[in-house]
């Protein structure tokens, strides 16, 4: 990423641990896309996603000494973001039953090809139950394999696989109807 500021990549964590706020800000800039994207796709609400992402980084600031490496940091951020998002969805069912227009609208920067279809696909993902949604996002947004997803969500591997299988079947089933409606 280009927004890391003046701190060399390998030293950021060490410098942030030493209490340098500029280094911590650079860490935030480096990981903000992942944390915010996961929060946004989970909650389907820009304000809630921003708030949750900020809380995740605040928690990181408090627990930075528990993070041992950059890889651990990426794992920790995904784990905390997803657990916080799932907790929030359970506490606030509004997010689950929302029209999810905003989720559909939240186009990625790389989106191209068929924008209508992709928009609808995002909407369908946002309608999945929270745990299944988390699994699908970690698989297709973060490109994690099922073992990594199981570790991140503290979920049995077979549960991850069954969530993936069922979610894909559900999306496939609903997508052709949508495609007809779109044309």
């Amino acid at each position, binding site marked *: 990423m280009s*927004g890391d500021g003046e701190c060399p990549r390998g030293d950021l964590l060490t410098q*942030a*641990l*030493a*209490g340098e*706020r500029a280094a*911590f*800000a650079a860490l*935030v*800039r480096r990981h*903000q*896309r*992942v944390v*915010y*994207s996961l929060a*946004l*796709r989970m909650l389907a609400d820009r304000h809630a*996603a*921003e708030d949750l*992402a*900020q809380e995740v*980084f*605040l928690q990181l*600031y*408090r627990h*930075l*000494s528990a993070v041992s490496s950059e890889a651990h940091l990426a794992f920790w951020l995904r784990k905390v973001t997803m657990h916080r998002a799932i907790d929030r969805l359970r506490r606030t069912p509004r997010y689950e039953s929302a029209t999810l227009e905003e989720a559909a609208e*939240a*186009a*990625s*920067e*790389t*989106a*191209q*090809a*068929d924008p209508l*279809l*992709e*928009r609808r*696909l*995002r909407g369908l*993902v946002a309608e999945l139950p929270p745990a299944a949604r988390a699994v*699908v*996002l970690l698989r*297709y*947004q973060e*490109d994690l394999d099922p073992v990594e997803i199981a570790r991140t969500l503290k979920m049995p591997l077979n549960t991850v696989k069954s969530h993936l299988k069922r979610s*894909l079947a559900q*999306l*496939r089933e609903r*997508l*052709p109807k949508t*495609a007809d409606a779109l*044309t």
Partner: protein
Amino acid sequence: MSEDLEPQEDLERRLRSALGAVDPGEGFAPRVMARIAAEPVPPPRAARAGAVVSWLAFGLAASGVLAVLLAHEWQVRRLEQGREARRQLIEALKVTDEKLNLAYRVVNTREGAAPPEHSGA
């Protein structure tokens, strides 16, 4: 997309494309740093280490005071038990002494009052 059956790979490719990253914008990091500055969040390591040390010192001091109090209490209780045992022993000796005295007096009285064995024969 006109086909009814979406092949698995195509669906996965579309999912990856649709679920790309979204950046919260340039202002996000400054907003996080502002929240950190506004909230009483301790600096990562130094504050944590300081807090751990102060809690450890407090715990040790509290343990020390508790140990002294318990030792004192134990000693007082032992002294009281010793005193009580001594009092009971003296009481028991007194009672025994009185019983022996009484027995001695009874024996002496009977011996003085009894007639000589050969007087009536």
